[in-house]
């Protein structure tokens, strides 16, 4: 088991390295750099001014060198301009002996965001915290609801209850967040229907979460993810309910509620566990849409800002975080599957 986890961690590191290189390459294409220079300077810059801006800030070095500097295995660039020395790792007025040579991810320096004029590390940390809060509430709402709906639908396949719950869960997965979010705002937060129960903006939820300002974003993400998990739970529940040992239990005269709760439930929950874990990466997409829609300035909002302004170092940090989220959840789902399923555990 230890070797398995170690190998997976190695692959994870390699994947993160490759992915960041791809992001690095895409953001460092010349047209993108030109856009960056123009948003930093002004939009009427001449081609020469763009080139000199990029040269001064070290953007015109060869790609592998820049990537090495970002990781922190190559010394950061320095430029001498009219006797003033500036560099990647220090500001203009730093005395010579205090200038560090390396500053990259390995040294714990995630770089400097060109949009927010702040350290990338601290920005990502705060935004990630906010999104963590959102995700926590989504999970609290989504997982129990999905499991209950799935188990209720799956315990008597083909019944009226099953039909109506299945229709509900299909409809909720088939409605993307940008549709359901807009509908929720129109119905529950605007004057269109006169029901001003909740707030259409979650900005105030960044400081203090209340029922009023956080319900709509949480419900929007939870409903979308819920349907899928409920479908999976229903499928595995129906499969379990047709198994031999359930029939035996019924023939012995065990109460139906006991059959469901004691005999079927545990076996039926193995498959949904993997699905729930694999939902995390998908929730990341939902987070981007919902946070933009409800103006909740979390990780998804950060991604949008970084991507639309070609903020290279911020984008790299964002992609590292999301890759790690994806791969860690995959790892957990694999390990959890082994522990939940005795057939694999013993073999």
């Amino acid at each position, binding site marked *: 088991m230890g070797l398995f986890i170690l190998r997976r961690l190695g*692959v994870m590191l*390699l*994947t993160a390295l*490759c*992915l960041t290189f*791809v*992001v690095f390459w*895409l*953001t460092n*294409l*010349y*047209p*993108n750099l*030109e*856009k960056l220079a123009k948003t930093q300077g002004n939009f009427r810059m001449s081609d020469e001014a763009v080139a000199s801006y990029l040269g001064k800030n070290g953007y015109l070095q060869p790609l592998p060198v820049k990537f090495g500097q970002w990781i922190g295995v190559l010394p950061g660039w320095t430029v001498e301009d009219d006797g003033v020395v500036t560099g990647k790792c220090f500001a203009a007025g730093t005395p010579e002996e205090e200038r560090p040579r390396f500053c990259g991810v390995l040294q714990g320096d995630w770089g400097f965001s060109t949009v927010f004029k702040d350290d990338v590390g601290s920005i990502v940390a705060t935004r990630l915290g906010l999104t963590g809060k959102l995700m926590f509430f989504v999970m609290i709402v989504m997982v129990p609801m999905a499991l209950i709906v799935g188990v209720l639908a799956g315990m008597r396949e083909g019944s009226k209850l099953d039909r109506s719950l299945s229709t509900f869960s299909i409809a909720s997965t088939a409605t993307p967040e940008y549709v359901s979010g807009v509908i929720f705002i129109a119905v529950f937060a605007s004057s269109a229907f006169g029901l001003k129960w909740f707030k259409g903006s979650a900005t105030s939820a960044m400081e203090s979460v209340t029922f009023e300002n956080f319900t709509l974003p949480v419900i929007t993400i939870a409903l979308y993810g819920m349907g899928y998990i409920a479908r999976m739970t229903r499928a595995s529940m129906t499969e379990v309910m047709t198994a031999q040992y359930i029939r035996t239990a019924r023939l012995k005269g065990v109460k139906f509620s006991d059959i469901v709760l004691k005999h079927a439930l545990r076996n039926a929950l193995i498959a949904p566990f993997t699905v729930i874990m694999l939902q995390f*990466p998908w929730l*990341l*997409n939902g987070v*981007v*849409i919902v946070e933009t829609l409800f103006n909740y300035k979390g990780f998804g909002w950060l*991604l*949008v800002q970084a*991507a*639309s302004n*070609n903020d290279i170092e911020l*984008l790299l940090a*964002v*992609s590292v975080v*999301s*890759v790690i989220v*994806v*791969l860690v959840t995959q790892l957990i789902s694999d390990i959890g599957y082994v522990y939940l399923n005795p057939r694999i555990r013993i073999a």
Partner: protein
Amino acid sequence: MEDLSWGGILARMFIQLGPVWISLIVLFTVSMTYKRRLGLYGKLFDSTIGMIGFGLVMFWVFVGVYGGPLDMLVTHDPLSQISGMKNKVPGTPMRGAEEGEYAYFLLGGDNLARDVFSRLIKGAWVVVQIAPVATLFAFVVGITLGLPAGYYGGRLDTLLSFLANLILAFPVILLFYLLVTPEIVLTGIPNYMALFLFVFPLIFVCILLNSRYYTQPAVRTPLLIGVLGGLGWLYLSLVSTNGAVVATPNYTIPGLPPFLDLFDIDPGILVVFVSVVFVNSPTVFRSVRGLAMDI
């Protein structure tokens, strides 16, 4: 003029979509009448859920086809901005409507004062163009790479699986953000991706025909030459626009000359198409690889 009521809007939309309803009714009556003679397709009409689903799909296909190339259904030009119509609610009368122009914005105006109803219909055509073909391409790419990976295993499998996981680990929304921008289109990356991805159907068909007629070289050789020639021409006219395969401000790679070029693809649609294929093929690859290993 006054704003239309919701009933009025729905009625007018119903009338505007008239050709779609007629086609749907014709399609369903013909299919229901001859359903016993239509094989698998006819079986669809034995199930209510099947019919509802088929109806939904065909509704959008008809809307797309009539609204897109045939230019029916739309009430206004989807791109022209009309002053005074910015962010108007559905059913607002068009300001300064002249004789022969449609007098209302049925679903209102967007924030650039364009008619939402017409844009919806034109958008349906883009989806109808991209979605089925992109899915088909994703399947072809996934199958062509997944079968050998599952069958041979070893290093090939390790490499391909790593690449597939790499794409899967990428947050889809970030990938789209990075790929579908005018700056990326300028660098010609979508064209390179198209060059690479569109080869796979050729390889796929080639392997398919070769394995079927391998024992009859007299049939196989001329068949393969003919089919590959035709597909190769299609491939070249697909990837080349204005006589160039890749055209960036700095350099061009020459492709098929314009007089041989059958059709051109709008670069905006191409980049979306290529990205969708690129993102979806790893999923297909994984399932095909798993199936091949099982068998």
